[in-house]
């Protein structure tokens, strides 16, 4: 059930009405309803993996209680490692098993050893990377005594499986979400309206920008040999907007949906393409994943303390693991590596905490320095995304060499003017709203209703007009 599908458009109002009316504001009943709805939502993908989801939930639920109740550190550590090993074991098996087998076989072949490869027919359970990280953060937080274990299984299961974030995040923390789940929730009109507005904006980003950019980005990446360097630039430029609008559009819909149920999810994107350096970009891009790795990997490794070697090691570890988290492919690892190279100088020269404010805050336009630094950072991001999008390393390398070759057959390729105008309009909207939670959060709040609604209808019409055939969200595969 995609967020941009008719089935979700039917599912959401039903759950919403049952949630606020049938449960008579009893939060226990509401949680039970949310859990059933979430399991139904997940079962629409593949009901067989419900058992895996249930197993993972039970594992972390009991591990959390065991860690919390353990009398000594040894037992606490034991239960922590039980949870970590099983969680990562499942993730490794379902997501990375075939990657390791093929990489091992390729390695042997390179050494001249013939190897008959038999990969396993493993289906990747949707959302596994996300719910595994939910569970892990929960048990680690209990181990670190940041939170208490949740004794009510329903409450805990809702924290892990809450349907807006189950498939592709944002990666929630128990410290943020659980306290909201275990207490009574009152309907908040302005929060619900804001949620609907954020859903509308998310749909616009996904359906209008991402899906339409995808048509041309796919065509260029799939046939890069036929195109000239400038076209390849267009291809990766459009992919850069595709990936951002696809994923941030998804999280806007997820956050907006959660707000309809009176729940605030963590922010996941903060206008990353207006970043003035790469460190700022990573504070604004996929924030919940970045902070997850920061808190549960980078800081335990020593963070940016220690000498040059330790800082370098930690930066590379966090970015390589982050890249690998995205998918079982060397392209993601190289993407992570490139970003580590980008970020490293700012960590070594201690400029990574620069630009903590919003760019051009209180001004309409950026100054020249800000403009140049944003353009440069965006350029670095675009280049790295070539590896993210490519099928394999060879594809990426050929794409890059063709991009800078300025030669070869120059096949005519034209991006529709309408799409260019839409992207330009989107950038302006994002820039105007960069001080908000999402671009149109404050648009028209003080306008007369008829004008405000006209804006929403206009957006909806653009969405309908430019809708393609319902592409899946890119981050579902992760």
């Amino acid at each position, binding site marked *: 059930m995609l967020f941009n599908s008719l089935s979700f458009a039917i599912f959401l109002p039903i759950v919403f009405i049952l949630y606020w009316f049938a449960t008579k504001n009893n939060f226990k009943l509401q949680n039970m309803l949310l859990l059933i709805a979430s399991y139904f939502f997940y079962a629409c993908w593949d009901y067989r993996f419900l058992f895996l989801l249930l197993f993972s939930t039970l594992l972390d639920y009991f591990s959390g209680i065991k860690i919390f109740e353990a009398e000594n550190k040894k037992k606490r550590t034991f239960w922590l490692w039980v949870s970590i090993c099983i969680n990562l074991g499942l993730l490794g098996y379902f997501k990375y098993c075939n990657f390791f087998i093929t990489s091992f076989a390729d390695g042997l072949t390179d050494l001249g050893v013939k190897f008959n490869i038999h990969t396993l027919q493993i289906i990747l359970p949707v959302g596994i990377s996300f719910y595994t990280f939910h569970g892990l953060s929960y048990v680690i937080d209990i181990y670190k005594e940041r939170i208490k274990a949740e004794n009510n299984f329903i409450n805990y299961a809702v924290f892990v499986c809450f349907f807006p974030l189950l498939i592709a995040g944002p990666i929630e923390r128990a410290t943020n979400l659980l306290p909201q789940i275990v207490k009574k929730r009152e309907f908040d009109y302005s929060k619900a309206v804001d949620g609907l507005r954020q859903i509308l904006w998310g749909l616009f980003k996904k359906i209008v920008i991402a899906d339409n950019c995808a048509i041309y980005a796919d065509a260029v990446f799939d046939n890069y040999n036929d195109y000239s360097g400038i076209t390849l630039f267009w291809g990766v430029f459009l992919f850069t907007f595709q990936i951002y609008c696809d994923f941030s559009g998804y999280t806007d819909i997820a956050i907006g949906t959660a707000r309809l149920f009176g729940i605030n999810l963590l922010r996941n994107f903060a206008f990353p393409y207006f970043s003035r350096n790469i460190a700022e970009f990573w504070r604004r891009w996929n924030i919940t994943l970045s902070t997850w790795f920061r808190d549960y990997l980078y800081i335990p490794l020593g963070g940016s303390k220690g000498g040059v070697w330790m800082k370098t090691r930690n930066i590379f570890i966090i970015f390589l693991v982050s890249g690998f988290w995205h998918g079982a492919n060397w392209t993601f690892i190289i993407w992570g590596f490139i970003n580590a190279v980008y970020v490293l100088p700012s960590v070594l020269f201690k400029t990574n905490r620069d630009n903590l404010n919003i760019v051009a805050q209180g001004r309409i336009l950026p100054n020249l320095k800000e403009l140049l630094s944003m353009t440069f950072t965006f350029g670095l991001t675009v280049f790295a995304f070539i590896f993210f999008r490519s099928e394999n390393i060879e594809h990426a390398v050929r794409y890059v060499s063709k991009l800078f070759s300025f030669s070869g057959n120059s096949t005519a390729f034209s991006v529709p003017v309408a799409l260019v105008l839409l992207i330009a309009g989107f950038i302006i909207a994002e820039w105007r709203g960069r001080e908000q939670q999402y671009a149109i959060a404050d648009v028209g709040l003080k306008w007369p209703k008829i004008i405000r609604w006209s804006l929403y209808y206009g957006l909806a019409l653009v*969405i309908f*007009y430019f809708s*393609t*055939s319902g592409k899946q969200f890119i981050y579902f595969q992760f």
Partner: protein
Amino acid sequence: MKTFLRQTSIFFAIPFGVLIVLLFSLNYINNKAMADYKTDTGVQSLFMGDSHVQCAINSALLPDAVNLSQSSEALLFSYFKIKYILQNNPAIKRIYLGFGYHNISTYADEFTYGKYAYDVASRYFFILPVEQKKEIIKHNLKQLPKFLGKVLINGATTLIEKEENYSFLGGYKNEYKNLIASKLSIDYRISLQFYENGKQRGFSAVNIMYLNKIILLCKDKNIELVLLKTPLHNYYKSKIPLTFTEKYDSLISLNKLKVIDFGNLVLNDSCYLPNGDHVSPRGALLTTNFFK
């Protein structure tokens, strides 16, 4: 909470109401336009079919004929068009119906109920009977907003365009210049029309059923039906799977149909478009001249 529900209900009810009003109005207007359609005086022959006929017959050069073919028009849509046209145009004595090998492939189903339906079926939506409308909506549920958007845009052509540009009507169109047949394009075309995921496609039950319906309709109205196989490049012909040529021939002989077969006409490469199964303006001139 009540305010929220009231406001959201109003918010969604307004466009829904507008949509319903638009759909009903356009349905009436389009049906009337189709029912009122009259061919020019003296027209006795009708050319119907998809882009193959649309590109091949320039009816401006034929005083007693009109070409109402349109790109991607499946036989299902041709049937309902013919039904309407015959009602109000008793002078029509003959129908040339474009019928090639690709028409019996499941490729044709993509335009009625498949992935291209939102673009093609939406042109004819208003002139279809209710049952067909339901069937097409059922097959476009996944892309319903886009489909309805296209239906409205296409339906509005009756209001804002000249008759020849009505979304369902069609007519001769061949603006491709300086192009010639290319093996690469022909290979791609063949793979599209006769194969899917590397496997040979099956036969389109819907299109074959509507061919039979057109045959019965013409018999009933005492109209001469002639099938028209437009010119095909030799390389294209050589690539058509045998099962399709056999099925095609069996349909012709079973129904004892008259066929004008341009398939064996030898034309040079410049008479074809790159895909080898459409003729260029030069090819169109040669094909049209046959009917003079």
